[in-house]
């Protein structure tokens, strides 16, 4: 009897071809770099990157940088999700509020959020407030818009159920509309998470203070090329970890949504 559960083995088998594909490309890169087919100086050299990765992770800067990036992301993201959901519930459910705020929303939403970095740096400086602000502004809109959509597309039967059982507005919104909209809200939150990571990394790269982005740019400026790639790998793994965690959370929260 195998100690590894069947479900895991099944999933591992499904992933195997894809992983082999990735591994073969890494091998190609390694060979190309070793035999000088690519510009040796600036190209990624997998074995060197792996070695530098080990050093980077073991270095004292690593927990600091990781903590800084994740910290700023977490604060900005959670603020954005809270604000986005609450505002979205209000705007989705209450027509006059929507009419009031929608033009402003439409004006602000299309602004590419990286464009907000220079003004934010001028207004808020280079530290935590600026980083939290940019993550907040970037993460707000997908959550907000998806919440509004989710509220709007709640099954009218469910709304009438709340009505016939005489639930007040507040109870209807939080006990019925919010759970019913959760699939759409979570879809928005997933996009926001990716966007937040991009923006916090970008702000770190531009201000060179703390965090994974700052370390990456630091390595670039000092021509420590393989270090730079190692930090890139760290960022990629962070993104992956965040995505997988989000998936797990989503599965627990909306286990019911495909069953309707």
């Amino acid at each position, binding site marked *: 009897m195998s100690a590894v559960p069947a479900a895991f083995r099944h999933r591992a088998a499904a992933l195997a071809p894809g992983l082999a594909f990735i591994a073969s490309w890494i091998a190609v890169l390694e060979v190309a770099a070793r035999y000088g087919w690519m510009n040796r100086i600036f190209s990624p050299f997998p074995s060197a990157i792996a070695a530098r990765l080990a050093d980077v992770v073991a270095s004292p800067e690593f927990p600091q940088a990781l903590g800084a990036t994740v910290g700023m992301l977490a604060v900005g993201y959670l603020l954005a999700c809270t604000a986005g959901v609450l505002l979205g519930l209000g705007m989705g459910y209450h027509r006059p509020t929507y009419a009031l705020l929608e033009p402003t929303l439409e004006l602000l939403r299309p602004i590419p959020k990286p464009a907000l970095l220079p003004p934010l740096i001028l207004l808020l400086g280079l530290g935590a407030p600026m980083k939290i602000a940019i993550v907040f502004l970037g993460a707000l809109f997908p959550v907000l818009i998806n919440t509004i959509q989710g509220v709007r597309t709640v*099954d009218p*039967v*469910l709304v*009438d*159920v709340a*009505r*016939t*059982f*005489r*639930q*007040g507005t507040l*109870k209807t919104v939080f*006990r*019925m509309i919010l*759970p*019913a909209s*959760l699939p759409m809200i979570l879809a928005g939150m997933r996009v926001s998470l990716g966007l937040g990571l991009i923006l916090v990394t970008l702000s770190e790269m531009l201000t060179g203070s703390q965090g994974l982005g700052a370390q990456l740019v630091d390595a670039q400026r000092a021509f420590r090329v393989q270090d730079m790639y190692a930090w890139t790998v760290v960022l990629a793994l962070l993104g992956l970890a965040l995505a997988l965690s989000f998936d797990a959370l989503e599965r627990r929260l*909306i286990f*019911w*949504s495909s*069953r*309707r």
Partner: protein
Amino acid sequence: MADLLDVQGVGKTFGAPAEPVVAIRSVDLRVAQGEFVSIVGPSGCGKSTLLQIIAGLLPASTGDVHLEGRAVVAPPEGVVYLFQQYSRSLLPWLTVERNVSFGFSHLNGASAREVEERCIHHLDMVGLADFRKRYPWELSGGMQQRVAIARALAAQPRVLLLDEPFSSVDALTRLELHGLILELWGKTGLTILLVTHDVEEAVYLSDRIVLLTRRPAQVAEVFANALPRPRRPVESREDPRFLGLRHELLTRLLKPE
């Protein structure tokens, strides 16, 4: 018996002022406490719309509805509407038990213990006490409808409004649910208003049958049902009084107007 429900001159028009669609022209109806009344009519005649107006879910364009003398403008206390699409009316993120408690747990401070007991009691009434920890989507159609009924009853209404509740279950389940409804009605003394397109169902279950015309709806005729109670699934359906009323209703419904 006092009139519980008084529907007077209720009409409903939909659509833009330029192109109005008159769903209901004018309906008068009085229902006494404890009565079981069915509303039948051709497809699309506005039966469900009428029921929703009585439930307070839709406003009437003309006329009004009074419940115990008080005007109905929003869903009133003591009235529960049961949806035709029962599957969609159950909250999929809640267990059966929590769905049942959804109808009443928000009301003044019952303790968790009391809420649980009330849920189990009503689930027991519909024979689903063992399924209380399941999710609605794990149950069959008939079971889901029974959960909806349990939820409605747990809210302890005086009036139950059923909108074609059995039209999407299979024939045998339908017969079981008929038995269940009659049993519950007998136990609770509820007033029930049932909208259905199934004439036999109307005759089997109710005290009176209101026949509506094609759209724009009006009351064509109200039939008193002389079929004796208690009603039995096989014997009552063979009773000449059943067959006679059924004959008359079907003839009227199938007549081209």
